[in-house]
C-alpha cells in the first residue's frame, strides 16, 4: 500500500503532538490518500465553476443537488471504480455501482437512473484481447447484477476501446436520484450528546486499504490485491435504501453518511469535521462478521452496504424500529462530543484519538510540478492521407468497429425500464427519465473522448463539455449542471500533471460558458500499469431539463422527410483530422489536434436545436459525434428508413463524410421552412441534405455517388459488431 511520506508523517506528529500508534497511522494513511483527500488535484479543482441559481448543494457533500422546480430536486454524481474492476471485474464494477447509489440516497434522494462510462483495452488485442473480453464481460455482468437487483434502471453511457486501457480499464458510474427540497440530508454529526448509530451490513475484513490501493500504480504485485476488493450485496443495499429513506421520514435523523472509501474512518471524521464536533465510538459495539478483528481492521474495512447515522438523542428507538422492519442491524456505537476529536475506543480503551478537522480537511495539498508540455502519444504533423478506394467499405468498417457499433449486447443485460420512468434509454444521444410528480423530465449524458484529450487536454476537455451539452440539446433539454470524473495517470510526473491541469482548465472554461456548474465528482489518479499511463480521460456527466413528453429519437421515421444538418458542414483541415475514428479505424493512425470548436457558434446551434425540438419540428434528431456525418446518417437508418442525401463536393470525400467537427445536429423534418427560420434567427447554417427514403442510404458528393448501401447491410454490421467481437474466435 502507499504509505505516508516522511513529510506527511511529520505533519501527523505535529497534529497529534506525539508519535501516532499503528491504528492512527492507518487512519491518516487512508484519509490522506489521493483517493480520499484529492491532495494532488484540489488546488486545481478550485478553478471549476460550482454555482448557479439552480445549485442547492455543490461540491464537498456526498452528491451535488440542483433544483428542478415544483419543490423537487435531483442529486447526482459520477464516481470511478477503476482499480478494483481490473483486479476483480465483476465485484469491482458491482461495488462501484453500490458506492455511488449510496452517495445518492445518503442525501435522501431515491436513485432513479444509472449511466456508465466504460473503457477497456481492444477486444482484438493480440496479447491482451482475451483478458480484455473477460474484463468487459465481468464489468457488464457486475453492473447488471447490482443495478438490476437494486431496482434502478441503467439507461446509458458509453463504451470505448483503446490500447492504453489494456492494463487499466476505467469504470465510471453516474447515478441520479430525486427528492423534495425538504427531504435533503447531510453528513453532519451535529448536536453534542447525540447517538452515533451504525446501520446495515456487518463489518468484515474485505476492502481494507481499498482507498490506498486506488491511489497507487499497478505493478505485478497488484494481482495479489484481490482481498482488497469488496464484495457487493445488492439486496442488502436495497434494504438499506428503503430503511434509510423511511428512517429519514421519522424526523429523528440529524445527519447520515455512507461508509464508502475508508469506511468507518471516513464517515466518522467527515461527519464530525463538517459539524465542527467530535465523534466518540467504541469498536466493540460495531457489528462484525468475523472474529478477532483489530481496531485497525475495523476502522479501515471497506465492507459494503453500511451507513452511519447521527440521531436525535432520545429518539433512537424510532430509527431502530425502521431498521428492524427491514431486518437490518442498527446499533448505537458512540456519541457526538464537543471536543472536535475522533476518539476510537476498543472495549473502553482508547485506540485512536485524532482531531476531526485536521484529519478530514487538512490533508497536505500538493502543487505538483506541471511546467512542461502535456505528454502526447502522437505526432503533430499529419501523414499523407491516401484517397479512399472504397468509401462504402470505409463506412461499414467504422460502423462495425468496437467504438462505434451498437452496444446492444451490453445494455440488453441492464434493466432499463424498472420504475417506469424511462422515456429514452440506452442508444440515444441522451437518456431521459420523467419525474412522475412534476411533469418535468431529466436528460442525462455521460461522455468522454480521450483520443481528443490525448492530442490536446485543454481543447479535448472543452469539446467534451460541448458534446455532452449538445447531446442534451439534441433531445430538447436545457443543460443545467454537471459532474466530472477525472481519470489520469501518475500526477507525480509533470507531463501527466500538465494533462490534468489543462483538462481541468478546459472543463472550467467550457462549463462556465455553457452555464453547467460542476456540483461534484471524482478524481482517479495513478491509472498506470507497469509505468504506462492511460490517456488523459476526463469524463463528463451533464444533466438537462425538459418538459415530459414522448422523446425525439435518432431513427428516421417516415419517408419523404427533409434531412437537414443544423449547424452546417463544419470545418476541418488535415491536422484536425488526426483524432477522428476514420484516422483510427481506417488509417490506423493518430496525429495532430482534435476538431476545432467555436463555443459561441456551438451555443447558438444548441439553442436552435432545442427550439426546433420544442416546437415539434424534429421528427428525428441526432448529434454528430465520432465517425462524423456518414456514421450519423447510418445510425439514423436504424429504424429501417434510409435517406438519399447530396453533399457539396467542396471537401475531399473522406473529410466531408467522416470529419468530426462539432456544433452539428442531423434532423429529419416535415417542416423544413420552419426549421430554416429558427436557424436564421439563431444565425446558424442549416443546409438541406436530401430526403428520407425506404431501403437504402445513398450519399452523393456533387456528381459522384460516394456511398450507396442497403439499410439491412448497414444495420447488420452496426447492430452485431460487438457480438461478433465477443464470439469465441478459437476453441
Amino acid at each position, binding site marked *: 500500500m502507499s504509505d505516508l511520506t516522511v513529510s506527511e508523517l511529520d505533519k501527523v506528529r505535529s497534529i497529534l503532538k506525539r508519535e501516532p500508534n499503528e491504528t492512527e497511522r492507518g487512519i491518516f494513511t487512508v484519509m490522506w490518500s489521493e483517493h480520499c483527500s484529492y491532495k494532488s488535484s484540489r488546488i486545481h479543482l478550485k478553478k471549476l465553476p460550482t454555482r448557479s441559481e439552480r445549485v442547492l448543494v455543490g461540491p464537498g457533500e456526498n452528491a451535488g443537488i440542483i433544483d428542478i422546480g415544483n419543490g423537487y430536486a435531483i442529486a447526482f454524481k459520477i464516481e470511478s471504480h477503476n482499480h478494483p474492476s481490473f483486479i476483480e471485474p465483476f465485484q469491482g464494477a458491482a461495488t462501484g455501482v453500490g458506492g455511488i447509489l449510496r452517495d445518492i440516497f445518503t442525501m435522501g434522494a431515491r436513485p432513479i437512473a444509472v449511466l456508465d462510462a466504460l473503457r477497456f483495452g481492444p477486444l482484438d488485442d493480440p496479447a491482451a484481447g482475451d483478458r480484455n473480453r473477460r474484463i468487459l464481460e465481468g464489468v457488464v*455482468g457486475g453492473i*447488471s*447484477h447490482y443495478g*438490476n*437487483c*437494486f*431496482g434502478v434502471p441503467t439507461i446509458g453511457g458509453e463504451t470505448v476501446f483503446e490500447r492504453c486501457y489494456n492494463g487499466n480499464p476505467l469504470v465510471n458510474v453516474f447515478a441520479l436520484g430525486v427528492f423534495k427540497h425538504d427531504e435533503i440530508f447531510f453528513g453532519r454529526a451535529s448536536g453534542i450528546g447525540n447517538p452515533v448509530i451504525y446501520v446495515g451490513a456487518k463489518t468484515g475484513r474485505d476492502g481494507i486499504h481499498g482507498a490506498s490501493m486506488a491511489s497507487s500504480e499497478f505493478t505485478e504485485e497488484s494481482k495479489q490485491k484481490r482481498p482488497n476488493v469488496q464484495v457487493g*450485496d*445488492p*439486496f*442488502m443495499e*436495497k*434494504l438499506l435504501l*428503503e430503511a434509510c429513506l423511511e428512517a429519514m421520514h421519522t424526523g429523528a435523523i440529524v445527519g447520515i453518511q455512507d461508509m464508502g472509501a475508508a469506511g468507518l474512518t471516513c464517515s466518522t471524521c467527515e461527519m464530525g469535521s463538517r459539524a465542527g464536533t467530535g465523534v466518540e465510538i467504541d469498536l466493540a459495539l460495531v457489528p462484525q462478521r468475523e472474529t478477532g478483528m483489530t481496531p485497525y481492521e475495523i476502522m479501515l474495512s471497506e465492507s459494503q452496504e453500511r451507513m452511519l447515522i447521527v440521531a436525535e438523542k432520545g429518539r433512537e428507538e424510532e430509527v431502530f424500529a425502521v431498521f428492524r422492519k*427491514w*431486518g437490518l442491524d442498527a446499533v448505537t456505537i458512540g456519541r457526538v462530543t464537543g471536543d472536535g476529536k475522533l476518539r476510537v475506543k476498543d472495549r473502553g480503551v482508547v485506540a485512536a484519538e485524532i482531531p476531526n478537522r485536521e484529519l478530514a480537511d487538512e490533508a497536505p495539498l500538493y502543487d505538483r510540478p506541471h511546467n512542461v508540455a502535456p505528454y502526447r502519444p502522437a505526432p503533430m504533423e499529419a501523414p499523407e492521407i491516401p484517397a479512399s478506394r472504397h468509401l462504402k467499405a470505409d463506412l461499414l468498417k467504422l460502423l462495425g468497429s468496437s467504438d462505434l457499433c451498437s452496444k446492444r449486447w451490453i*445494455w*440488453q*443485460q*441492464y*434493466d*432499463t*425500464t*424498472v*420504475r*417506469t420512468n*424511462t*422515456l429514452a434509454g440506452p442508444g440515444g444521444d441522451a437518456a431521459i427519465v*420523467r419525474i*412522475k410528480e412534476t411533469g418535468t423530465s431529466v436528460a442525462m449524458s455521460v461522455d468522454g473522448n480521450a483520443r481528443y484529450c490525448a492530442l490536446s487536454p485543454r481543447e479535448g476537455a472543452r469539446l467534451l463539455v460541448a458534446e455532452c451539452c449538445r447531446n442534451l440539446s439534441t433531445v430538447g433539454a436545457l443543460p443545467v449542471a454537471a459532474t466530472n470524473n477525472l481519470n489520469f495517470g501518475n500526477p507525480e510526473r509533470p507531463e501527466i500533471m500538465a494533462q490534468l491541469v489543462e483538462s481541468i482548465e478546459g472543463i472550467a472554461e467550457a462549463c462556465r460558458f455553457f452555464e453547467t456548474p460542476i456540483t461534484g465528482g471524482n478524481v482517479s489518479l495513478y491509472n498506470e500499469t507497469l509505468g504506462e499511463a492511460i490517456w488523459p480521460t476526463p469524463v463528463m456527466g451533464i444533466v438537462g431539463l425538459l418538459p*415530459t*413528453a*414522448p422523446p425525439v429519437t435518432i431513427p428516421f421515421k417516415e419517408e419523404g422527410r427533409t434531412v437537414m444538418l443544423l449547424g452546417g458542414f463544419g470545418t476541418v483541415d488535415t491536422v484536425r483530422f488526426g483524432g477522428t475514428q476514420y484516422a483510427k479505424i481506417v488509417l490506423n493512425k493518430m496525429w495532430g489536434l482534435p476538431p476545432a470548436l467555436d463555443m459561441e457558434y456551438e451555443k447558438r446551434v444548441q439553442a436552435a436545436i432545442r427550439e426546433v425540438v420544442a416546437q415539434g419540428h424534429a421528427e428525428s434528431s441526432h448529434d454528430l459525434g465520432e465517425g462524423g456525418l456518414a456514421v450519423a446518417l447510418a445510425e439514423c437508418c436504424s429504424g429501417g428508413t434510409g435517406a438519399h442525401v447530396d453533399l457539396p463536393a467542396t471537401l475531399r470525400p473522406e473529410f466531408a463524410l467522416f470529419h468530426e467537427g462539432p456544433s452539428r445536429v442531423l434532423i429529419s423534418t416535415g417542416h423544413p421552412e420552419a426549421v430554416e427560420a429558427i436557424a436564421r434567427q439563431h444565425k446558424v447554417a442549416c443546409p438541406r441534405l436530401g430526403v428520407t427514403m425506404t431501403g437504402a442510404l445513398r450519399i452523393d458528393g456533387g456528381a459522384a455517388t460516394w456511398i450507396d448501401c442497403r439499410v439491412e447491410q448497414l444495420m447488420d454490421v452496426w447492430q452485431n459488431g460487438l457480438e461478433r467481437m465477443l464470439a469465441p474466435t478459437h476453441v
Partner: protein
Amino acid sequence: MRFGVVVFPGSNCDHDAWYALSHNLGQQAEFIWHDSTSLGNADAVILPGGFSYGDYLRCGAIAKFSPVMSAVRKFAADGGLVLGICNGFQILVESGLLPGALLRNAGLRFVSREVTLRIETTNTPFTASAQRGQLIRVPVAHGDGCYFADTRTLDMLEAEDRVVVRYIDNPNGSLRDIAGICSERRNVMGLMPHPERASDPLMGSTEGRVILESMIQSVVAAHA
C-alpha cells in the same frame, strides 16, 4: 376495484404495478407487506417483479415460506385472482401454485428488451378482453426466465389450454416458447414479461394493459 400489491423486501417492481393500476388504469391499489397474514379486502393480488429476499438461492425459494404467501395460497384456493409478474411468476412456481420451474436464461445472461407475445387463449380472467392470437409488445427484464417442465406437464398445459402467452421471439430458451401460464382453475397466472411496464403511453407501449384490464373486467363481471 381493489388490487393488493405484495411487497417483499427485495421487490422492485411493486411501485411500477401500483402506478399502472392506480394512475394508468384508475383503480385502487394498496401495498401488502410480506409479513402480513392477511390480504385485507383485495379483489385481486399482484406479486410484482424484483428479488424477493435477494434470491441468492433459487428465485422465490425463500419467498414461498413468507407469511403473506400463506394468505395468497388461501386467497387462490378461494378462487381469488392472483397475477405473478417476473419474480412473482417465479414465486408462484416455487410455491406450487403453478407447475414447472424457471431456470437461468438459455444465454446465461440477464435479458432486458421488448418482446412480442401472442395471446394463446382468452379463456382466462387475465386475457378475457383480448383477442386470441393478438400480439402485444411488452418488456422482459430477467435472468431466470427459462420456463421448464417435463413433457407430460407441458402436454397437459397445452391440452388444458393453460398456456396463456407465448413468445414470438423467445428471449430465454423457454420450452415451447411459453411466457405465461395459468392454474387449473384459471384464477392464478404467472408470466415473465412486464405488462405493467407497458401500460403508460409515455413508456412506448400500452399493449400490456389488456392483461390488467381483463382482470378488472373479470372482477367487475363476477360482482355484477
